[in-house]
């Protein structure tokens, strides 16, 4: 009758204490946050007295995990971006044109002259003047294909080549497109992460969502516009030979040329060779600097390959201009005065200091492989977040106190025991949330408050059952035992069904809905634990000390 083995008691109290200890840092939020920041700062940049003081404000042996506050509580920006993977297909196809031209040119006797035909951006169409040579041309072009290295695309090659009449068509294979998508997404994620990290904000969330979307949440940033400016810029830097300069935007640029507008001279266009001499991928460093006139500029340095290409080109073309192109705009087109051999250079335009700093960050982080379309953007101001925290706090305290009072009035001593369990329960939810580093959102607070309401349910079920059993059972100990035993199946069934909905919310929801699902799910687990184990243990301990002849529930 009413016995609980010692080891079980130890485990139960141990779990409770563990939950409380992990929840504790949240009670000293700013102090612990300061401690965590100081620890990171000391690791990165050495110790200063202020940092050491901030670090020592919270003992190192205590857990220092905090619940992250969601955007709706802290303020910040949220973006959902779709990566235009088709851009990369077009780039790839363009990359094949010189290769294809080279192999076919060697066999001019068989295939005749070759000419690129206008087509969709992800298709390369080439006309050969001797249709009889098509078989040989196909054979040669197919030789350019290389195998795709993905799990799904075993045995397939990256391009598909077909011929009809005198037109040869080259497209990317399905396997290659999939592989490209994956690669593009990974690159984009990596570059966005680098750019966001360079700005140095706290706990940004950068996640892949679905096939080609990226979710970016940055707390503490002023607005979604600011974030978009930072990550939305492709920052594709290339250096092209200049063919000519014009003020006519409709002029035909010529076969292998492109027409690019100037950044700071309105109405001026440059005709450039399509194939760049060097591009941003060869950049190793970019730093904000000042040019010889004292205007803000960006210093950059090439890797050895880039430096060699750039050096060779400048040596051969002294006296002719070349263009620095950033995101399809000519930043400047200086004339080459000398052989530039060091592999470094300077970009000057009409920049402000901030703009040059930002451009340096963008160039350093690398170019995005493709452009992005923004499907969703949200900005939440920090004041609104603070208001929500304040309102949530007051509401949670009022809700808690009214439930505690109500339980005490309804069940007396047993109600008080349930109240102790309820407080432990909430503390454990906070402890678990901190332990897994979950993010607390406004609906999350609602989830916790709802759990407070529902957590008493299990105890209510048990207490009501004990009341019933008291009428028939022999003695209070037996009634308590039967009460727990018989209420169990209802508690389990009821909580599993709620848990199922929490899981579905988690799987299908996003953002704040997920935060709500997490707190609801954890709340169900802790409330079942506290209701079944903790209250029972407290009641048994009380019973052992007092040995009451009758009890009133």
């Amino acid at each position, binding site marked *: 009758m009413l016995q609980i083995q010692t080891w079980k008691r130890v485990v139960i109290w141990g779990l409770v204490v563990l939950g409380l200890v992990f929840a504790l840092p949240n009670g000293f939020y700013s102090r612990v946050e300061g401690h965590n920041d100081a620890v990171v700062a000391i690791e990165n940049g050495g110790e200063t007295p202020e940092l050491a003081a901030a670090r020592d404000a919270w003992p190192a042996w205590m857990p220092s995990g905090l619940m992250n506050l969601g955007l*709706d509580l802290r303020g910040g920006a949220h973006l959902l971006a779709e990566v235009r993977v088709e851009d990369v297909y077009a780039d790839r196809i363009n990359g094949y044109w010189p290769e294809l031209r080279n192999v076919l040119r060697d066999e001019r006797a068989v295939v005749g002259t070759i000419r690129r035909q206008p087509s969709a951006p992800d298709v390369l169409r080439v006309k050969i003047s001797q249709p009889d040579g098509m078989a040989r041309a196909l054979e040669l072009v197919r030789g350019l294909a290389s195998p795709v290295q993905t799990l799904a695309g075993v045995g397939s090659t990256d391009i598909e080549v077909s011929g009809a009449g005198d037109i040869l068509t080259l497209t990317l294979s399905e396997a290659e497109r999939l592989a490209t998508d994956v690669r593009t997404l990974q690159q984009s994620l990596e570059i966005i992460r680098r750019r966001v990290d360079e700005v140095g904000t706290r706990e940004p969330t950068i996640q892949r969502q679905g096939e080609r979307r990226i979710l970016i949440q940055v707390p503490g940033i002023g607005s979604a516009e600011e974030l978009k400016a930072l990550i939305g810029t492709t920052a594709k830097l290339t250096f092209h030979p200049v063919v000519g300069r014009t003020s006519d935007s409709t002029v035909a640029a010529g076969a292998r040329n492109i027409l690019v507008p100037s950044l700071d001279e309105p109405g001026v266009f440059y005709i450039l060779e399509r194939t760049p001499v060097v591009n941003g991928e060869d950049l190793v460093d970019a730093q904000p600097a000042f040019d010889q006139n004292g205007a803000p500029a960006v210093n950059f340095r090439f890797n050895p390959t880039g430096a060699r290409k750039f050096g060779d080109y400048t040596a051969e073309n002294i006296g002719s201009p070349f263009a620095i192109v950033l995101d399809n705009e000519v930043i400047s087109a200086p004339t080459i005065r000398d052989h530039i051999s060091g592999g470094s250079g300077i970009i000057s335009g009409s920049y402000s200091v901030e703009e040059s700093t930002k451009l340096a960050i963008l160039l350093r982080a690398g170019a995005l492989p493709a452009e992005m379309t923004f499907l969703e953007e949200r900005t939440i101001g920090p004041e609104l977040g603070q208001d929500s925290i304040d309102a949530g706090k007051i509401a949670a305290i009022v809700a808690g106190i009214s439930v505690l009072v109500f339980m005490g009035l309804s069940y*007396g001593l047993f109600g008080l025991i349930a109240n102790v369990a309820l407080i432990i329960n909430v503390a454990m939810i906070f402890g678990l949330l901190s332990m897994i580093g979950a993010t607390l959102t406004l609906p999350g607070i609602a989830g916790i408050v*709802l759990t407070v309401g*529902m957590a008493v349910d299990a105890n209510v079920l048990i207490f009501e059952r004990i009341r019933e059993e008291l009428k028939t059972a022999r003695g209070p100990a037996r009634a308590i035992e039967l009460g727990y035993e018989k209420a169990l199946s*209802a508690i389990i069934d009821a909580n599993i069904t709620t848990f199922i909905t929490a899981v579905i919310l988690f799987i299908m*929801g996003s953002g*704040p809905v997920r935060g709500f699902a997490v707190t609801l799910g954890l709340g169900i687990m802790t409330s079942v634990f506290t209701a079944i184990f903790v209250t*029972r243990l407290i009641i048994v301990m009380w019973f052992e000390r007092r040995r009451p002849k009758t009890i009133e529930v």
Partner: protein
Amino acid sequence: MRLKLVPSETSFDFFKASKVTFGLSILAMIFSAVVFFSAGLNFGIDFKGGTTIRTESTQVLDVGIYRDALQPLELGDVTITQVFDPTFAEDQNVAMVRFEAQVGDESIAAETVIAVQSALRSVDPVVSFPSVESVGPKVSGELVKTAILAVIAAISAVLFYIWLRFEWQFALGAVAALVHDIVLTIGIFALFQIPFDLAIIAALLTIVGYSLNDTVVVFDRVRENLRKFKKMDLRGVLNLSINDTLSRTVMTSVTTLLALIALLVLGGDVIRGFIFAMTWGVIVGTYSSVFVATNILLYLGVKRDWSKPDANAGNQFANVDA
């Protein structure tokens, strides 16, 4: 002296007026459907696409002036509503400005947002914009689909679980109660044109969970009493079970409502719609588990020959012990 909302012994006949209660539920559902199809839901930007801007100003707010300021921008459907909340300070005047996604926009036009903000600033120089949210039409369509799928998935998962643990009649009864709760909740959102956004879907699913919780507790007692009183007719067993659990049903609803009402009044306007849905859901959920689920069970009848000998022996949780 204990506070008792329900006397310890009750013997109400919950089926005496079953025509009235059940009829009332059906009428309410029909009414909800009519309102839903005639007035429609006031979908938020999550589902419709568009932009909401929250404005805050120390100046006295006049929705008309705001509307006039935005008139020249030709944004199409613009809604401006003033927000009132007990947690606001004396001179805190808040409004929500919502406009639809502009024709031809695949993504979000930042210029439109800036234009709206400067137009508002021109009539109210001290206005600030604590939050700006935009959802493109492409995402919003997907969100609707996911939301509907989520509700269907939740209901089917639960249907399956109850069928596993009880009998199919119980599962149907529980699901009828769920559908009742969801329809009535959607109905009240359509009736009062409360903005319906993604968080409301979360609230709906929570209602599903809560209502089930209630229903399952009653059903659990029905199952137990069916075994205990093999001679009693089904109506008697159902009545007895509801009476047995009535005190608990009321207690739990009251504690949950206490918590929810505290949030509803003091939790701020940002989550008011969400909390309102849950509060309403708890009320109809409690009602439906007493009056709807059991009525369906009575109508369908249940297999009385439970081959399992005792309430706990066949129960997989019989050996769970502290």
